[in-house]
């Protein structure tokens, strides 16, 4: 297997699907000629040409509207929203149009489209370019939500998202674009809605997403070595559909749950998982469920402050090691 970076895996998945299906198109700001501001789509214009890979004006509502109209009429568009923070300027198209079209039309409309976007902090870009908004997406009925934590998952999950008959918001964690791992060559698809048990363990279940997964894994190692605590780390990979089965099974075994979210605290996806586990695994819980999140504060820009806010390996270690 080749070592690919997270950003290369994005281009690889799109290329794989564009080769397979001529109805897959790709549009966004600076995505074609420049290959994207994160260089995640380099080479696509060259391979698939300007009719399938298109630069747009700075018009997020037009980009997503165009993607929706194309999806409703037989195509499978992929749209890029450069930073996930910018979903706020086109949220209506996502939540009121794309998410509701099938239901409101009594099943007539199809919206098989993918919206990719760079999510999260760590780049010192400040509060308007660093948000983790996977919880905004999860709160909206009618869209699937994917957030991969490594290059292999990027390839397999992005391919699955493009093939999916429903609209998918695909969150790429911008702090991970440079990270590499072994990625299967050739066609590769990971079904949506299957969590990954990133590490097995018996004392406590740690559910982490995207950039929080490698942190949770590092913390798990330290917890094992220094504190003798055995962590099972679960990466849900998708928030919708959510693999509650894997999570509930794990907590039934460990009796403890910690969630690690990059999004700010209130109404984060960790709350949802906590409420499901708290309701359905109540009698198996040995200890209160604890959530580790970014505080409910806009993100600071400068490294020293941003690092205090986004959950860190240390924080995970200290929270887990202090659990009852």
């Amino acid at each position, binding site marked *: 297997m080749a070592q690919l970076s997270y950003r290369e895996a994005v281009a690889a998945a799109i290329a794989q699907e564009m080769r397979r299906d001529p109805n897959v*198109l790709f549009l966004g700001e600076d995505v074609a000629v420049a290959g994207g501001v994160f260089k995640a789509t380099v080479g696509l214009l060259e391979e698939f040409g300007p*009719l399938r890979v*298109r630069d*747009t*004006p700075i*018009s997020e*509502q*037009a*980009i*997503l*509207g*165009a*993607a*929706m*109209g*194309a*999806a*409703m*009429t*037989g*195509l499978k*568009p992929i749209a890029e929203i450069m930073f996930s923070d910018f979903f706020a300027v086109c949220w*209506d*198209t996502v939540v*009121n*149009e794309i998410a509701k*079209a*099938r*239901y*409101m*039309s*009594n*099943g*007539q*409309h*199809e919206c*098989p489209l993918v919206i990719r976007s760079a999510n999260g902090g760590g780049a010192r870009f400040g509060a308007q370019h660093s948000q983790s908004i996977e919880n905004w997406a999860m709160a909206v*009925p*009618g869209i699937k939500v994917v957030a991969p934590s490594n290059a292999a998952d990027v390839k397999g999950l992005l391919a699955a998202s493009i093939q*999916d*008959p*429903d609209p998918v918001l695909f969150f790429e964690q911008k702090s991970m674009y440079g990270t590499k791992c072994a990625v299967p060559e050739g066609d590769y698809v990971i079904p949506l*809605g299957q969590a990954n048990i990133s590490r097995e363990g018996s004392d406590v279940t740690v559910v982490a997403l995207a950039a929080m997964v490698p942190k949770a894994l590092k913390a798990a190692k330290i917890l094992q070595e220094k504190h003798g605590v055995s962590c099972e780390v679960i990466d849900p990979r998708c928030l*919708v*559909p*959510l*693999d*509650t*089965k894997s999570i509930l099974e794990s907590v039934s075994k460990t009796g403890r749950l910690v969630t690690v979210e990059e999004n700010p605290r209130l109404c984060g996806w960790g709350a949802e998982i906590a409420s*499901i586990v708290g309701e359905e695994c109540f009698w198996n819980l040995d200890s209160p469920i604890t959530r580790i999140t970014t505080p409910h504060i806009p993100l600071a820009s400068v490294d020293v402050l941003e690092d205090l806010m986004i959950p860190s390996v240390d924080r995970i270690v200290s929270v887990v090691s202090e659990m009852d």
Partner: protein
Amino acid sequence: MGTKVTKSKAKTGSAGKYPLNETKQLELYQKMAECRALQQRAHDLFMQNLVKGTTHLGLGQEAIAAGFGAAMREDDYTFNTYRGHNHNYVRGVSMTAILGELMGRDIGQLRGKGGSMHITDTTKGAMGSYAIIGAHMPIAAGAAWSAQYRGTEQAAVCFFGDGTTNIGTFHEALNFAAVWKLPVVYVCENNQYMEYTAIGDVTAVPNPAADRAASYGLPSILVDGNDAEVMYETAMAALEKARSGGGPTLIEAVTYRHYGHSRADPGKYRPDEEVAEWKNNRDPVPNYRNKLLAAGMDESKLAAIDANTEEMVDKATEEAKSSGPPPDEIAFTDVWADGGAAWRN
């Protein structure tokens, strides 16, 4: 508060490039008459408390939909607003299904899941009624992009109101469509009011769409939206341009709504004389009937349409009324392509 829109501002004819034979003229009249009767019925049903939720009527605006309906190809796409019964009907959406939806019956076009504001029939190219102002304008561009990519020479037609010209998506969609030369026709139905506010009070230019066409490199087109023939000819020209790779068209059609904005709105914010002028002197349906008669049309043909229309609407009403409410279980279906609503395993 009412903005004055004088007749003289709007073009009342075109170059006659698309001549209308009698069949087409009767088609135009019939479409208008049926739209009128359908909506008058919707209004009456509302007054009888048989309409659930809200409803927005396009009485007085029938010529625009009729002109386009008569000009469009079967496989073209229509996008319209909540005030969309005319536009759906002229594409062939069933009257029973429209009235059924308004009344919340199982026979309704969306079985009550969408309601009056969201009538859709993709089998007729009626690609939906949209209730967030401006949202459908980029979506229509997307359907046009799809047609362009697939090389089908289909066009998308997008209807919207005067008030919609002041929201951001109007601007984004038109620039986008112009740059990509998309086969889409944007039709502003300037009925001179947003909900209760006169468009002139909140708009920087007198003609909210036509005066802005230049921003997108497009010609300014301002037409009499109450003249079905003008609308037909305008539609034909725009559709031809779209199909031949000429890119988008922006049309402003001046018109008026006879009733209030929605539901029981009595429309009291409009001067009485203004309403009277449009209802009595500029009503597109009787005016077109009179015009045809004056031009020598055999009255019996028009009378036959009128009679048939009444019958159709009565029949549709009865059909709709005889249908019960939708079954409970459909509340929980069709969120996803698999027909279900599950978000977890």
